[in-house]
């Protein structure tokens, strides 16, 4: 039976039915998300416009954009701009975060793709290899950060020892202490830890590419690289992009890795670290909420730009 044999009223009835079903299916998920995400988000955005203090949340008073930007008058005709937007440390942390996310996600994508392609081929022991590469992702971040802090230690760290044995460096490097290397150390650990996530998602996308496409291409004698570029890549691109988007979102919120691994200095402070400092360590909950709200907008801006640039298909017009 095909559509042509159905009458028009039948079709529109069916479409209506399916639309109703769609909302019924979406409702439970949306309700849960509204409760666990939308409400706390709304609270935080609201706190950003108040003078709330963490131990006095109930007494928050509306202060408008004061936490974002306001003119602080010394009282003698002079003054200066204050607020998150006027804090050079905030802008430095925005830059740090974007730099970190850009570099680590690019490396992860390349490595993840290579690993996924390797694992997509069949060879003896593939199951074990697949399990092995997931290990870094399976270790709790808190633990892996501590583990790497230990391995990167300047005196007892095995990384220095290894590099010195091989002769790549002649004296121990204080990886996490020196501003010049700290950010690279963080990127390296992040790449190590999250490449499996990338690889697994790309692998799942590869698995869904029908085999006969390869068969046909192979018979036509298409070279492997061309095959990858012309056939495989376009087919796995949607899955790959989703993986990249989620990794980027994760990387832009980077927190515990830096929190455990390096000193909270200007060189490595990320947006989340900046927000946390103000929310919980200092008595500036409202200011921290404003920073969190800005962090949200910065990430949203980057994500929307990314989706636009890559022409990711949200509506599926086929």
């Amino acid at each position, binding site marked *: 039976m095909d559509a042509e044999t159905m009458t028009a009223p039948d079709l529109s009835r069916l479409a209506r039915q399916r*639309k109703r*079903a*769609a*909302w019924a*299916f*979406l409702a*439970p*998920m949306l309700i*849960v998300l509204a*409760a*666990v*995400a939308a*409400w*706390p988000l*709304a*609270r*935080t955005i609201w706190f950003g416009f108040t003078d709330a203090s*963490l131990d006095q*949340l109930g007494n928050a008073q509306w202060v408008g954009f004061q936490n974002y930007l306001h003119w602080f008058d010394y009282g003698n005709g002079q003054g200066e701009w204050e607020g998150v937007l006027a804090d050079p440390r905030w802008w430095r942390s925005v830059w740090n975060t974007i730099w970190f996310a850009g570099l680590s996600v690019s490396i992860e994508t390349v490595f993840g793709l*290579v*690993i996924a392609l390797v694992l997509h*081929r069949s*060879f003896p022991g*593939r199951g074990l290899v*697949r*399990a092995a*590469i997931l*290990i*870094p992702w*399976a*270790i*709790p*971040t808190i633990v892996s950060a501590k*583990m*790497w802090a230990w391995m990167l230690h300047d005196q007892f*760290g*095995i990384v220095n*020892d290894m590099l010195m044995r091989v002769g790549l460096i002649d004296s121990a490097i204080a990886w996490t202490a020196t501003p010049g290397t700290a950010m690279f150390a963080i990127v390296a650990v992040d790449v190590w830890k999250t490449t499996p996530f990338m690889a697994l998602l790309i*692998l*799942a996308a590869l*698995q*869904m590419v*029908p*085999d006969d496409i390869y068969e046909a291409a192979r018979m036509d004698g298409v070279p492997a690289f061309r095959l990858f570029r012309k056939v495989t890549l376009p087919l796995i691109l*949607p*899955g790959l992009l989703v993986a990249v988007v989620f990794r980027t979102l994760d990387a*832009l*919120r980077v*927190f*515990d890795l830096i929190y455990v691994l390096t000193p909270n200095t200007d060189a490595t402070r990320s*947006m*989340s670290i900046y*927000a*946390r400092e103000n929310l919980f360590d200092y008595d500036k909950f409202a200011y921290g909420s404003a920073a969190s709200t800005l*962090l*949200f907008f910065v990430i*949203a801006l980057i994500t*929307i730009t990314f*989706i636009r640039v890559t022409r990711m298909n*949200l509506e599926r017009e086929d």
Partner: protein
Amino acid sequence: MARLKTYGFYLLVAVIVLQAVFPFYYAILTSLETGQAIFDINYLPAALDWSNYRSMLSSGVFGRQFLNSAVTASAVVVLSLVLATTAAYALARIRFRGRGLLLLTILSVSMFPQIAVLAGLFELIRAFGLFNSLWALVFSYMIFTLPFTVWVLTTFMRKLPVEIEEAAIMDGASALTIIWRVFLPLMWPAMVTTGLLAFIHAWNEFLFALTFLSTDTQRTVPVAIAMISGRSEFEIPWGNIMAASVVVTLPLVVLVLIFQRKIVSGLTAGAVKG
């Protein structure tokens, strides 16, 4: 040439495995050392001292905490897969206005830092009377598992050809039946993958577990690991921490080994690879 290629391939496999496993291997090595021996660098086990494992397993609550983690992570996986599969079906296969916007909104949930929702979520959980209950974790973890699972499953579901459900629609099958009969069998790789990733995420989460639970018998493993300490506040017992990490990571490795067959099985039914 072909042989060279094969060697090259296996070399690549070896490098991949080595970089992934070495830190874990080093953790195991460290977990078998105690006291001053930890500060000496060695590449092969110098001693087999199981005392770190014994002291951890004999602490009594560790088994309970392990169970807490397992229960929470499993509940998170089941709940997010159920919610996400049905939602993904609606988003991927049914045309209605505002789909793109809805997807973006769901995605935007992933843009808020965990730190920033902590206070609001804490208020909410106390209001619902869920404080110090594992349900608090199951619900709060939806923040990161739901957007991700919905998105991944939607992308995968869209790629399935229209023909596969056409027949069922024409036969008048309900949407639920279509999901169950038509899509689930085809969606295995994606569902196992996202389920596994959600499981690992829930298994490893630290901040919420720390904030929303207050007794040792309710706590999950990452928090328990963070609580492991030496004889004073500044002493870091690497041996114990590594031992706990090894114990925590092993189930995940086993899980991957069990489910990897499912990840392998391709889209085309019956096409057995690997």
